[in-house]
Protein backbone atom coordinates (compact mmCIF):
# COMPACT_ATOMS: atom_id res chain seq x y z
CA UNK A 1 0.00 0.00 0.00
CA UNK A 2 1.28 3.41 -0.96
CA UNK A 3 1.78 5.72 1.98
CA UNK A 4 0.54 9.32 1.68
CA UNK A 5 3.11 12.05 1.16
CA UNK A 6 3.69 14.41 4.08
CA UNK A 7 2.20 17.32 2.11
CA UNK A 8 -0.97 15.36 1.47
CA UNK A 9 -1.18 14.40 5.13
CA UNK A 10 -0.81 18.04 6.16
CA UNK A 11 -3.55 19.08 3.74
CA UNK A 12 -5.86 16.39 5.00
CA UNK A 13 -5.24 17.41 8.59
CA UNK A 14 -6.01 21.06 7.81
CA UNK A 15 -9.23 20.08 6.08
CA UNK A 16 -10.30 18.02 9.10
CA UNK A 17 -9.59 20.86 11.55
CA UNK A 18 -11.42 23.38 9.35
CA UNK A 19 -14.47 21.16 9.13
CA UNK A 20 -14.62 20.94 12.93
CA UNK A 21 -14.70 24.74 13.20
CA UNK A 22 -17.36 25.00 10.51
CA UNK A 23 -19.64 22.62 12.36
CA UNK A 24 -19.21 24.25 15.79
CA UNK A 25 -17.81 27.78 15.72
CA UNK A 26 -15.70 28.12 18.88
CA UNK A 27 -16.26 31.85 19.26
CA UNK A 28 -20.03 31.51 19.76
CA UNK A 29 -19.68 28.63 22.24
CA UNK A 30 -17.03 30.52 24.14
CA UNK A 31 -19.23 33.63 24.37
CA UNK A 32 -22.16 31.63 25.79
CA UNK A 33 -19.97 29.89 28.37
CA UNK A 34 -18.50 33.25 29.26
CA UNK A 35 -21.91 34.82 29.92
CA UNK A 36 -22.97 31.84 32.01
CA UNK A 37 -19.76 32.00 34.03
CA UNK A 38 -20.23 35.75 34.51
CA UNK A 39 -23.80 35.18 35.69
CA UNK A 40 -22.52 32.73 38.30
CA UNK A 41 -19.73 35.07 39.42
CA UNK A 42 -22.12 38.00 39.71
CA UNK A 43 -24.51 35.93 41.81
CA UNK A 44 -21.74 35.12 44.26
CA UNK A 45 -20.56 38.72 44.27
CA UNK A 46 -24.06 40.02 44.98
CA UNK A 47 -24.43 37.49 47.80
CA UNK A 48 -21.16 38.67 49.33
CA UNK A 49 -22.34 42.29 49.02
CA UNK A 50 -25.42 41.36 51.04
CA UNK A 51 -23.28 39.72 53.72
CA UNK A 52 -21.04 42.80 53.90
CA UNK A 53 -24.11 45.04 54.23
CA UNK A 54 -25.28 42.85 57.13
CA UNK A 55 -21.93 43.25 58.86
CA UNK A 56 -22.20 47.01 58.38
CA UNK A 57 -25.54 46.97 60.22
CA UNK A 58 -28.20 46.78 57.50
CA UNK A 59 -31.41 45.26 58.84
CA UNK A 60 -32.94 41.96 57.73
CA UNK A 61 -36.07 43.83 56.69
CA UNK A 62 -34.09 46.00 54.28
CA UNK A 63 -32.13 43.05 52.89
CA UNK A 64 -35.05 40.65 52.41
CA UNK A 65 -36.15 42.17 49.04
CA UNK A 66 -32.56 41.90 47.80
CA UNK A 67 -32.41 38.22 48.73
CA UNK A 68 -35.69 37.65 46.89
CA UNK A 69 -34.28 39.36 43.80
CA UNK A 70 -31.14 37.27 44.06
CA UNK A 71 -33.20 34.09 44.06
CA UNK A 72 -34.85 35.31 40.86
CA UNK A 73 -31.40 35.87 39.36
CA UNK A 74 -30.46 32.36 40.48
CA UNK A 75 -33.48 30.91 38.69
CA UNK A 76 -32.49 32.74 35.50
CA UNK A 77 -28.93 31.44 35.82
CA UNK A 78 -30.18 27.87 36.27
CA UNK A 79 -32.47 28.25 33.26
CA UNK A 80 -29.53 29.56 31.22
CA UNK A 81 -27.52 26.52 32.27
CA UNK A 82 -30.30 24.13 31.26
CA UNK A 83 -30.76 25.74 27.84
CA UNK A 84 -27.03 25.85 27.18
CA UNK A 85 -26.90 22.07 27.57
CA UNK A 86 -29.39 21.59 24.74
CA UNK A 87 -26.62 22.25 22.27
CA UNK A 88 -28.75 23.86 19.57
CA UNK A 89 -29.08 27.42 18.29
CA UNK A 90 -32.44 28.08 19.96
CA UNK A 91 -31.17 26.82 23.28
CA UNK A 92 -28.03 28.91 23.00
CA UNK A 93 -30.04 32.06 22.30
CA UNK A 94 -32.32 31.45 25.30
CA UNK A 95 -29.34 30.61 27.45
CA UNK A 96 -27.70 33.92 26.57
CA UNK A 97 -30.93 35.82 27.23
CA UNK A 98 -31.43 34.30 30.67
CA UNK A 99 -27.77 34.72 31.56
CA UNK A 100 -27.90 38.43 30.73
CA UNK A 101 -31.06 38.86 32.79
CA UNK A 102 -29.40 37.14 35.71
CA UNK A 103 -26.33 39.37 35.38
CA UNK A 104 -28.52 42.48 35.30
CA UNK A 105 -30.39 41.55 38.46
CA UNK A 106 -27.22 40.52 40.32
CA UNK A 107 -25.56 43.82 39.45
CA UNK A 108 -28.57 45.79 40.73
CA UNK A 109 -28.58 43.76 43.95
CA UNK A 110 -24.87 44.39 44.49
CA UNK A 111 -25.31 48.15 44.08
CA UNK A 112 -28.34 48.30 46.36
CA UNK A 113 -26.61 46.18 49.00
CA UNK A 114 -23.58 48.47 48.95
CA UNK A 115 -25.83 51.51 49.29
CA UNK A 116 -27.73 49.95 52.21
CA UNK A 117 -24.49 48.93 53.87
CA UNK A 118 -22.97 52.39 53.64
CA UNK A 119 -26.15 54.03 54.99
CA UNK A 120 -26.36 51.52 57.82
CA UNK A 121 -22.71 52.07 58.72
CA UNK A 122 -23.19 55.86 58.89
CA UNK A 123 -26.38 55.54 60.92
CA UNK A 124 -24.72 53.08 63.25
CA UNK A 125 -21.80 55.46 63.78
CA UNK A 126 -24.12 58.35 64.63
CA UNK A 127 -26.15 56.17 66.99
CA UNK A 128 -23.05 54.90 68.78
CA UNK A 129 -21.56 58.38 69.15
CA UNK A 130 -24.83 59.81 70.44
CA UNK A 131 -25.25 56.98 72.93
CA UNK A 132 -21.79 57.49 74.42
CA UNK A 133 -22.26 61.28 74.59
CA UNK A 134 -25.54 60.68 76.42
CA UNK A 135 -23.79 58.29 78.79
CA UNK A 136 -21.14 60.93 79.61
CA UNK A 137 -23.79 63.62 80.14
CA UNK A 138 -25.73 61.33 82.48
CA UNK A 139 -22.51 60.55 84.33
CA UNK A 140 -21.81 64.26 84.81
CA UNK A 141 -25.34 64.97 85.98
CA UNK A 142 -25.14 62.08 88.43
CA UNK A 143 -21.80 63.38 89.76
CA UNK A 144 -23.25 66.88 90.26
CA UNK A 145 -26.31 65.43 91.98
CA UNK A 146 -24.18 63.38 94.39
CA UNK A 147 -21.81 66.23 95.26
CA UNK A 148 -24.52 68.82 95.78
CA UNK A 149 -27.04 66.59 97.55
CA UNK A 150 -26.84 68.51 100.87
CA UNK A 151 -27.31 71.87 99.15
CA UNK A 152 -30.24 70.48 97.21
CA UNK A 153 -31.85 69.23 100.45
CA UNK A 154 -31.44 72.67 102.03
CA UNK A 155 -33.01 74.28 98.98
CA UNK A 156 -35.97 71.96 99.12
CA UNK A 157 -36.44 72.56 102.86
CA UNK A 158 -36.43 76.33 102.36
CA UNK A 159 -39.01 76.08 99.61
CA UNK A 160 -41.19 73.94 101.84
CA UNK A 161 -40.96 76.49 104.63
CA UNK A 162 -41.79 79.38 102.32
CA UNK A 163 -44.82 77.55 101.03
CA UNK A 164 -46.08 76.59 104.52
CA UNK A 165 -48.93 78.74 106.01
CA UNK A 166 -48.16 80.72 109.17
CA UNK A 167 -50.42 79.68 112.03
CA UNK A 168 -51.58 82.70 114.11
CA UNK A 169 -53.52 80.52 116.56
CA UNK A 170 -51.17 81.25 119.53
CA UNK A 171 -51.64 85.05 119.18
CA UNK A 172 -55.46 84.69 119.02
CA UNK A 173 -55.52 82.69 122.26
CA UNK A 174 -53.35 85.26 123.96
CA UNK A 175 -55.81 87.95 122.83
Amino acid at each position, binding site marked *: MRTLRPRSLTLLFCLLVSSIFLVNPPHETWAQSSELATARQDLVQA*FQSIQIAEQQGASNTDLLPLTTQLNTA*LQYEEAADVYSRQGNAAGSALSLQYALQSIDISTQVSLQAQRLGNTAQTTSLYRTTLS*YILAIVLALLSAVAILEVSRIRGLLRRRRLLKARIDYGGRKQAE
Partner: protein
Amino acid sequence: MSLTAIFSSVTFYAMSAKPSQSFIGLGLYSQRGLQGYIPNSNLTIATGQNLNWTFAVTNRMNQAEFVMIITRIGNSSTLTSNATMPSTTLPQLGATEQFINDGETSRINFNWTIESSYQTAGLTYLNVSIDGQQSVNSAPVGTASGRNFRLIFELWTFDPVSGSFQYGYPGQTSQVGVWLQVWFNAS
Protein backbone atom coordinates in the same frame (compact mmCIF):
# COMPACT_ATOMS: atom_id res chain seq x y z
CA MET B 1 -14.45 59.29 86.23
CA SER B 2 -15.88 56.17 87.79
CA LEU B 3 -19.44 57.24 86.98
CA THR B 4 -18.37 57.87 83.38
CA ALA B 5 -16.90 54.37 83.25
CA ILE B 6 -20.09 52.86 84.72
CA PHE B 7 -22.41 54.63 82.31
CA SER B 8 -20.15 53.87 79.35
CA SER B 9 -20.04 50.20 80.29
CA VAL B 10 -23.83 50.04 80.51
CA THR B 11 -24.09 51.70 77.09
CA PHE B 12 -21.55 49.28 75.62
CA TYR B 13 -23.46 46.28 76.99
CA ALA B 14 -26.80 47.62 75.73
CA MET B 15 -25.42 48.17 72.22
CA SER B 16 -23.50 44.91 71.89
CA ALA B 17 -25.03 41.98 70.04
CA LYS B 18 -26.12 39.29 72.45
CA PRO B 19 -24.36 35.91 72.09
CA SER B 20 -26.37 33.21 70.35
CA GLN B 21 -25.78 29.80 68.85
CA SER B 22 -25.92 29.88 65.08
CA PHE B 23 -27.53 27.04 63.18
CA ILE B 24 -29.37 26.05 60.01
CA GLY B 25 -32.31 23.68 60.26
CA LEU B 26 -33.47 21.38 57.48
CA GLY B 27 -36.92 19.82 57.35
CA LEU B 28 -38.91 17.91 54.79
CA TYR B 29 -42.68 17.61 54.64
CA SER B 30 -45.49 16.59 52.40
CA GLN B 31 -49.19 17.24 52.45
CA ARG B 32 -49.82 13.52 52.23
CA GLY B 33 -47.32 12.57 54.91
CA LEU B 34 -43.95 11.01 54.33
CA GLN B 35 -44.34 7.78 56.32
CA GLY B 36 -40.80 6.92 55.40
CA TYR B 37 -38.45 7.79 58.18
CA ILE B 38 -37.84 4.17 59.08
CA PRO B 39 -37.16 1.09 56.95
CA ASN B 40 -39.94 -1.40 56.25
CA SER B 41 -42.37 1.48 56.14
CA ASN B 42 -45.40 1.68 53.92
CA LEU B 43 -44.14 4.37 51.57
CA THR B 44 -44.45 2.55 48.26
CA ILE B 45 -44.04 4.58 45.11
CA ALA B 46 -45.26 3.44 41.73
CA THR B 47 -43.45 4.18 38.49
CA GLY B 48 -44.73 7.43 37.03
CA GLN B 49 -46.19 8.62 40.32
CA ASN B 50 -45.39 12.27 40.95
CA LEU B 51 -44.51 13.23 44.51
CA ASN B 52 -44.61 16.82 45.71
CA TRP B 53 -42.54 17.38 48.81
CA THR B 54 -41.27 20.60 50.36
CA PHE B 55 -38.01 21.43 52.10
CA ALA B 56 -38.11 23.91 54.97
CA VAL B 57 -34.72 25.49 55.59
CA THR B 58 -34.37 27.79 58.60
CA ASN B 59 -31.44 30.18 58.70
CA ARG B 60 -30.31 31.33 62.15
CA MET B 61 -26.69 32.05 61.20
CA ASN B 62 -26.91 35.81 61.83
CA GLN B 63 -26.18 36.37 58.14
CA ALA B 64 -27.67 35.53 54.77
CA GLU B 65 -26.72 32.09 53.49
CA PHE B 66 -26.43 30.48 50.06
CA VAL B 67 -27.51 26.88 50.55
CA MET B 68 -27.58 23.84 48.31
CA ILE B 69 -29.53 20.66 49.01
CA ILE B 70 -28.03 17.60 47.32
CA THR B 71 -30.28 14.60 46.80
CA ARG B 72 -28.67 11.15 46.73
CA ILE B 73 -30.05 7.64 46.62
CA GLY B 74 -29.00 4.74 48.80
CA ASN B 75 -30.22 1.41 50.10
CA SER B 76 -30.10 -0.45 53.40
CA SER B 77 -26.41 -1.35 53.07
CA THR B 78 -24.91 1.90 51.82
CA LEU B 79 -23.19 4.32 54.18
CA THR B 80 -25.10 7.50 54.78
CA SER B 81 -24.02 11.03 55.53
CA ASN B 82 -23.29 11.94 59.13
CA ALA B 83 -22.55 15.01 61.23
CA THR B 84 -19.10 15.44 59.70
CA MET B 85 -18.96 13.72 56.32
CA PRO B 86 -21.27 13.65 53.29
CA SER B 87 -21.91 10.40 51.48
CA THR B 88 -20.08 11.31 48.30
CA THR B 89 -19.87 7.69 47.17
CA LEU B 90 -23.64 7.56 46.60
CA PRO B 91 -25.01 8.73 43.24
CA GLN B 92 -26.30 12.27 43.15
CA LEU B 93 -29.79 12.58 41.71
CA GLY B 94 -29.99 16.37 41.81
CA ALA B 95 -29.18 19.58 43.61
CA THR B 96 -31.19 22.68 44.37
CA GLU B 97 -29.82 26.05 45.47
CA GLN B 98 -31.40 28.95 47.36
CA PHE B 99 -30.42 32.23 48.99
CA ILE B 100 -31.93 32.55 52.47
CA ASN B 101 -32.00 35.72 54.54
CA ASP B 102 -31.04 35.60 58.21
CA GLY B 103 -34.00 34.73 60.41
CA GLU B 104 -36.03 33.38 57.49
CA THR B 105 -37.45 29.93 56.80
CA SER B 106 -37.40 29.19 53.11
CA ARG B 107 -39.70 26.63 51.50
CA ILE B 108 -38.24 24.84 48.50
CA ASN B 109 -40.34 22.58 46.33
CA PHE B 110 -39.06 19.07 45.66
CA ASN B 111 -41.04 17.19 43.02
CA TRP B 112 -39.78 13.82 41.94
CA THR B 113 -40.83 10.78 39.94
CA ILE B 114 -39.58 7.27 39.34
CA GLU B 115 -39.65 7.33 35.54
CA SER B 116 -38.73 3.69 35.08
CA SER B 117 -37.08 0.74 36.75
CA TYR B 118 -35.20 -2.30 35.52
CA GLN B 119 -33.60 -5.40 36.94
CA THR B 120 -30.06 -6.59 36.56
CA ALA B 121 -28.54 -9.55 38.40
CA GLY B 122 -31.52 -9.77 40.72
CA LEU B 123 -31.37 -6.12 41.78
CA THR B 124 -33.83 -3.37 40.88
CA TYR B 125 -32.44 -0.05 39.66
CA LEU B 126 -34.37 3.17 39.17
CA ASN B 127 -34.36 6.12 36.79
CA VAL B 128 -35.40 9.11 38.88
CA SER B 129 -36.34 12.58 37.67
CA ILE B 130 -36.32 15.58 40.02
CA ASP B 131 -38.14 18.86 39.28
CA GLY B 132 -38.70 17.92 35.66
CA GLN B 133 -35.01 17.54 34.92
CA GLN B 134 -33.46 14.71 32.93
CA SER B 135 -33.74 11.41 34.81
CA VAL B 136 -30.71 10.01 36.60
CA ASN B 137 -29.97 6.34 37.06
CA SER B 138 -29.63 4.98 40.59
CA ALA B 139 -26.79 2.60 39.65
CA PRO B 140 -24.73 1.32 41.32
CA VAL B 141 -27.40 1.51 44.04
CA GLY B 142 -30.01 -1.19 43.61
CA THR B 143 -32.17 -3.27 45.93
CA ALA B 144 -33.85 -6.64 45.93
CA SER B 145 -37.44 -6.36 44.71
CA GLY B 146 -37.22 -2.58 44.77
CA ARG B 147 -37.58 -2.45 48.57
CA ASN B 148 -35.72 -0.27 51.03
CA PHE B 149 -34.39 2.46 48.84
CA ARG B 150 -33.71 5.73 50.59
CA LEU B 151 -33.40 9.29 49.43
CA ILE B 152 -30.67 11.14 51.32
CA PHE B 153 -30.75 14.93 51.48
CA GLU B 154 -27.59 16.83 52.40
CA LEU B 155 -27.40 20.53 53.22
CA TRP B 156 -24.36 22.36 51.84
CA THR B 157 -23.54 26.06 52.39
CA PHE B 158 -21.44 28.40 50.27
CA ASP B 159 -18.09 29.37 51.75
CA PRO B 160 -16.94 32.76 50.38
CA VAL B 161 -13.33 32.08 51.43
CA SER B 162 -12.94 28.94 49.35
CA GLY B 163 -15.50 30.02 46.74
CA SER B 164 -17.23 26.64 46.90
CA PHE B 165 -19.97 24.81 48.75
CA GLN B 166 -19.07 22.98 51.95
CA TYR B 167 -21.05 20.18 53.59
CA GLY B 168 -23.20 21.42 56.47
CA TYR B 169 -22.84 24.87 58.00
CA PRO B 170 -19.88 26.47 59.81
CA GLY B 171 -20.05 25.70 63.54
CA GLN B 172 -17.91 27.13 66.31
CA THR B 173 -14.99 24.78 65.69
CA SER B 174 -15.84 22.89 62.49
CA GLN B 175 -18.53 22.28 59.91
CA VAL B 176 -21.76 20.80 61.28
CA GLY B 177 -23.32 18.29 58.90
CA VAL B 178 -27.07 18.45 58.31
CA TRP B 179 -28.86 15.66 56.48
CA LEU B 180 -32.17 13.79 56.24
CA GLN B 181 -33.28 10.50 54.75
CA VAL B 182 -36.59 9.03 53.62
CA TRP B 183 -37.04 5.31 52.97
CA PHE B 184 -39.31 4.09 50.21
CA ASN B 185 -40.15 1.03 48.18
CA ALA B 186 -40.43 1.13 44.41
CA SER B 187 -43.27 -0.92 42.99
